[in-house]
């Protein structure tokens, strides 16, 4: 199960993670709906592009720009959070949404927990593969922590001061 579009949903995607012995160009990509590492996509693209139901995932040290010309190839793009305190994925998501104009499913994978999800949603994630040892129903509540925000981001195109009439001086 994952959280998708603010609801708990069944999920039939598999995330392919490379073992130490695997290399991106010769790892065997199983059949079915699979989300492959960026490097696997880059080295096996000719074989993979014929597939329907393909996803790709980015690691924290990879750049959204590397998918610039490939966005239409994927049904889902995922960003990996190796540790919940690692914030690189927020900037990757923002680049995908704002700079590259990606509008498909953007999924947070890895160490994804309730208390980070509100910010993740703001920068553009709409799907969350929450950590399996945690209650997904409780995690869903994390998306509603705030109803007002100061900044513009992927969810709000305008900062608060352009969005509403603010209170004036004394």
């Amino acid at each position, binding site marked *: 199960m994952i959280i998708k579009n603010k609801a708990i949903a069944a999920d039939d995607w598999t995330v392919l993670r490379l073992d130490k012995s695997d290399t991106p160009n010769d790892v065997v990509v199983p059949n079915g709906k699979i989300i492959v590492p960026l490097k696997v996509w880059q080295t096996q693209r000719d074989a993979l592009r014929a597939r329907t139901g393909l996803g790709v995932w980015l690691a924290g040290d990879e750049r959204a720009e590397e998918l610039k010309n490939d966005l239409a190839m994927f049904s889902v793009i995922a960003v990996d959070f190796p540790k919940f305190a690692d914030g690189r994925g927020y*900037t990757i998501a923002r680049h995908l949404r704002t700079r590259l104009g990606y509008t498909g499913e953007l999924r947070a994978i890895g160490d994804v927990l309730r*208390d980070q999800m509100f910010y993740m949603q703001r920068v553009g994630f709409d799907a969350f593969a929450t950590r399996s040892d945690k209650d997904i129903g409780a995690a869903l509540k994390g998306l509603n922590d*705030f*109803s007002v925000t100061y900044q513009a981001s992927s969810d709000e195109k*305008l900062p608060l*001061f352009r969005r509403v009439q*603010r209170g004036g*001086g004394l």
Partner: protein
Amino acid sequence: MYRYDNFDHQITGQRIAQFGDQVRRRLSGELTEDEFRILRLHNGLYLQVHAYMLRVAVPYGLLSSAQMRMLATISRKYDRDYGHFSTRQNVQFNWIRLEDAPAILADLARVEMHANQTSGNCIRNITCDEFAGVAQDEIVDPRPYAEILRQWSTFHPEFAYLPRKFKIAITGASADRAATAVHDIGLAAVKNAQGKIGFRVLVGGGLGRTPILGTEICDFVPWQHVITYLESIVRVYNEYGRRDNLYKARIKILVKAIGIDEFRRRVEADWQHTRDGPCTITVEELNRVAAFFTAPDYEQLPEHNAAMAAQKSESRAFSNWVQRNVKPHKVPGYAAVVLSLKKTGIAPGDATAVQMDAAADLAERFSYGELRVTHMQNLVLADVKQSDLFDLWLAARELGMATPNIGLLTDIICCPGGDFCSLANARSIPLAKAIAERFDNLDFQHDIGEIELNMSGCMNACGHHHVGNIGILGVDKDGEEWYQVSIGGAQGNDSSLGKVIGRSFTFAQTPEVVGRLLEVYVRERFADERFIDTVRRIGPIPFKDHVYAAPVNDDQALAGEEYRLLAAGANHDTPLYASGV
């Protein structure tokens, strides 16, 4: 000063509800300590030696009397009747129970205060010149920009999990009183040749174990673009800053590693996508916020108050206080007053509940109900009539807040140190007290003149020891406390980093070492030459030679009362000074 509107109240209230639920989940075991740690840090809550410490933000150092009274109330209700003012314009309460934290945040919210992002790897409280709005050398009042940036940085979704903490300081005056060169980003307001207002931006300054002064990344960012420009700096840092080594994760390491030119190129490349976009600050928004910082209704007064001149000649003590603690004001007949939190025998920056309430009263009586908190860990009443100075002095003296030592030897900057902080290698407050005791004589202090002595209990440098004219750093050698001494550091427009003079000293030796450094200064100085200028002129060698020429007495009796109590095994469950004034 700024007042919350409905949106500010709503956001703050929702944050408290969020954190209250996180505390509940921690107490029920639903959250592990590892998962909870970062959440509590984002709400200013540290786990320290004895208890939780709550760090409350005083945004850009500005407090109303009502807010100050709430700090006093919190110290009585949840703590031990005192608070500690830190070098980053925060207030720290040292004896907090986790269960109480949400209620404290709710109390703070009632007076429009918070503890948001006062720790953790996010954008921290934005600090400012304590004389903003009243300084004679002010070019632009920085407070509206500081408030706009406070809102921008509060719960910024992209920048809550940066590689490391991120500190911004802003000044609008020609003299830098906000230590902008030792911040991750330092902003100095400037007016260009066309009369347009913008900011000179420094990046990559910081203390800690790799002290570096900030480098100019841009000499003029027009004010409208300050959000988008800062956003690009922080974004490049978030993408490229190191995360593999805690000690190499600050932005200064990134700037140094790739060079300022490459760093600037990446920032400008990012900025091209957002410049002139929706985050550009509008004139309407600047005007809205600036309207909260209008000048009070000043009276028309003569430049100098004759009665005050007479009071000065009648009382040397008052005269000394005016000389050291009273600062010029842009409006004739007014002055800004520094209330010293550095009375000998008291931990630097500590204020009791009684003092906090009384300072709030003084602000109401003499200064339009506003106070400022300084990065030198003192308080300021910014709008006092010269004709009121004598009465203010009498009242402040009763409260132990009129020590005439601003800018002098005993105006020591000091972190909480080993008495409280779990990071510290050594105690700093007892040593600051021992040094203050030894040089308590005010005539001697006035003779030594302007000097900054800064002390940190570990290399995280919360006491800014690198930029002290004399810097003292607590180090750990085989489990024992030692102190490393440096000279030649300075903050402000001529910032410099101090140089270590040699091998470190014991607690009991250190006051004597400070004494020897001062002996060299007295011997070598020209008339009216400040300590730092003598050090710069003759270099560190004469100081070093004199300090190490003869063995430094390790006689514990010389180290003062504090040390004797410690050596006798005083119980630090209740720190010695917590008994208060």
